[in-house]
């Protein structure tokens, strides 16, 4: 009910344990053991996990909107990419004369015949400006779009479809070569970040540790947020927006705030993602990518903070493995998985233990026949809830 603590003691221990395992033990296993050792974590694996972790940040952003506020945004990939582009622009300028043409201009600008660096590229020489942009550009776009959308009460399916159109339009725009962001090829062939070689295993390890830290931080932030009064209102908006509105809360402001906040979180994730995968291009902002992130959340369990992380990591691990093991069939496996989860496991993977134990308790209760009935009804899925309150005027 009124927990003021962020996490209970036990939860802190688990959280700390996982964070240390991911953030300290794995990198140590990577750096201390020789390649070939059975416990050695290869550079490749570490880098791969780093990528998954940034995707988990994206998933958390989706979940704070969808699972907690009921806003299914198909535009999260856009914010992720915008963050990525902001960082990518900085990395692009840091290539300096090490590019193909030994020019200060990024390669694509040279061969497309740009006379000089466009003005809006100039400030990106500064790392801190770029970092600020990874937060502020997505937030700005989210504020602008959200302002109009929430003001005119666009919600539910309409919100999804409009965000999808937004991200699609943005992708088309970025595909354009004249848009000064490298067109279809996007930004790539980065060399250094803050003076460190991106290809250096040490840098890659640091980026990985930063990803762990970012994910941990976002997790705690999400935890704090959802446990606050704000979080209660968030979920109230999800379940019965009218009631909240008629209780004197300006729901549009709340939605705008969380939409922009999630855009910022997602943008940061995108920036770290780009540092680790080494490329950002417009296909990253196609609606499909947003849908993928939503599926991670659905598979993991929406409306929880652990769910999206579990979902993002497990689905991506599955994808990495399946694209190699079953190049022809993996899409069918993934598609089937989504359908099954939506149909039979609306609470996602993290709801499985709860379901099993509830079932077990019911069974026990039935066995003891005359025993007291379990006080709580089985937990319905969030989707059913919204259906319950859908008939308010």
């Amino acid at each position, binding site marked *: 009910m009124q927990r003021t603590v962020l996490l209970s003691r*036990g*939860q802190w221990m*688990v*959280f700390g344990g*996982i964070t240390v*395992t*991911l953030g300290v033990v794995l990198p140590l296993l990577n750096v201390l053991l020789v390649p070939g050792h059975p416990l050695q974590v*290869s550079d*490749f*694996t570490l*880098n*791969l*996990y780093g*990528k*998954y972790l940034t995707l988990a940040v994206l998933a958390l952003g989706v979940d704070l909107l969808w699972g907690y506020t009921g806003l299914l945004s198909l535009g999260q990939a856009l914010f992720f990419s915008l963050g990525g582009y902001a960082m990518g622009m900085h990395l692009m300028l840091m290539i300096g004369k090490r590019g*193909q043409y030994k020019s200060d201009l990024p*390669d*694509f600008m040279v*061969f*497309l*015949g740009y006379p000089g660096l466009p003005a809006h590229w100039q400030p990106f020489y500064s790392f801190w400006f770029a970092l600020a942009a990874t937060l502020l550009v997505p937030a700005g776009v989210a504020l602008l779009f959200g302002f109009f959308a929430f003001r005119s009460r666009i919600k539910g399916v309409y919100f999804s479809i409009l965000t999808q159109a937004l991200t699609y339009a943005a992708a*088309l725009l970025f*595909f*354009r*070569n004249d848009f000064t962001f490298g*067109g*279809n*090829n*996007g930004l*790539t*062939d*980065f060399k250094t970040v803050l003076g460190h070689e*991106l*290809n250096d295993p040490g840098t890659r390890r640091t980026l990985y540790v930063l990803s762990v830290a970012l994910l941990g931080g976002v997790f705690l932030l999400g935890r704090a947020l959802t446990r606050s009064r704000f979080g209660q209102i968030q979920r109230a908006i999800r379940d019965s927006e009218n009631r909240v509105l008629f209780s004197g809360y300006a729901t549009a402001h709340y939605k705008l705030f969380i939409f922009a906040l999630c855009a910022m979180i997602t943008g940061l994730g995108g920036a770290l*993602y780009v540092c680790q*995968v*080494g*490329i950002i*291009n417009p*296909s*990253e902002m196609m609606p499909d990518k947003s849908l993928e992130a939503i599926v991670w959340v659905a598979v993991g*369990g929406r409306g*929880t903070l*652990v*769910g999206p992380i*579990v979902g993002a*990591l*497990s689905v991506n*691990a599955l994808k*990495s493995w399946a*694209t*190699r093991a079953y*190049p*022809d069939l*993996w*899409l069918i496996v993934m598609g089937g998985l989504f359908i099954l989860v939506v149909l039979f496991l609306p609470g996602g*993977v*993290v709801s*499985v*233990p709860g379901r099993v134990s509830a079932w077990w308790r019911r069974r026990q209760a039935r066995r003891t026949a005359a025993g007291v009935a379990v006080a709580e009804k089985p937990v319905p899925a969030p989707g059913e809830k919204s259906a319950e309150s859908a008939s308010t005027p």
Partner: protein
Amino acid sequence: MIHSWKTYLAAASLALGGALLPAHAAETVKVGVLHSLSGTMAISETSLRDVLLFTFDEINAKGGVLGKKIEAVVVDGASDWPLFAEKAKQLLEQDKVAATFGCWTSVSRKSVLPVFEKNNGLLFYPVQYEGEELSKNIFYTAEAVNQQATPGVDYLLKDLGKKKFYLLGSDYVYPRTTNLVLKEYLASKGVPAANIKEKYTPFGHTDYQQIVSEIKQFAASGDAAVVSTLNGDTNVPFFREYANAGLKAEDVPVISFSVSEDEFRGLPTKDLVGQLGAWSYFQSVESPANTAFKKAFFAWLEKTSVPGIEKKGRVTNSPMVLSYVGVYLWKAAVEKAGSFDVAKVTAALESGVSFNGPGGKVTFQKNHHLTKNVYVGETLPNGQFKILKSFEQVYGEPFLKGTFGKK
């Protein structure tokens, strides 16, 4: 809540376990195949996977490379460019492949390029591209712009006497760069800027009514041709519209640089008869090497048991043949170097190994491109090209921009 934490732990350990991969045997040499087998690019790239597997089988049947059998590691880039980089890392860092054959789009090549440079890998890239790139770790069997676009336009200028050019492309780097080069080239041949028009459409564009009507008016005052760098998928709606508007190849020919025999399988060839193409190989090339290649490949298709390979209605085209000669050139270089070591193989390749391929003799140059024959052909109703003109042994030049003006 506690249950969820446990789940998290379980999932994390699962993910860890998934990354450990089996070790490999010693009497084989691992070679990577990095193409999109799903997603939008699968349409083109699966054919390259097929021809690569065929080539490996063919080489293995003759004893392999340096006595070792080639073991193919096939991965799916899934038309997802960061995934390409990840798969490239996997091939290089985990599977330790001796060489990789793959990529179609420029963006996928750009995405994996730093990975190959960092791990000192070896990538053979088989698809016509815009040039403007030279990595020490990539060998471009692909056609450079001067091995496809400029000879093609040359044919329009000299053989057909065309005076007006409509440059139509998909909006991405290859068409843009190619057209930049072509504009310089045309200007150097005395074509005034007023006689050149340039238009771009988005990927997956389906409505070419406006553009075709524009071409029609552009061509109304005589001797015009269309130079198309539209990418695969948008060609069907374009050519349908083109034919229906009454534009004919005899009057206003279209020369396409991204349409090969493989694309014809999905194009209404009726609408395309007489339209032009320029490649360094056509299935209709007449040479003993090509006859042997086609026979062996089609026979292999008949009996292969690899899942997901189409057996009916298959053709050969330039990217396929360039993949094929890439493998043989790598083999030749390995044998010349006597080692799979990347530095030694690179040196051998740069020293100029040759192979008598289905499209004619190909030789690696010091700049990692191939000297090869170039053909201009026109489309026949059966989805083949009839060769109209050939250019023998053209030197591949990746950096063309600005070179014509200086002359």
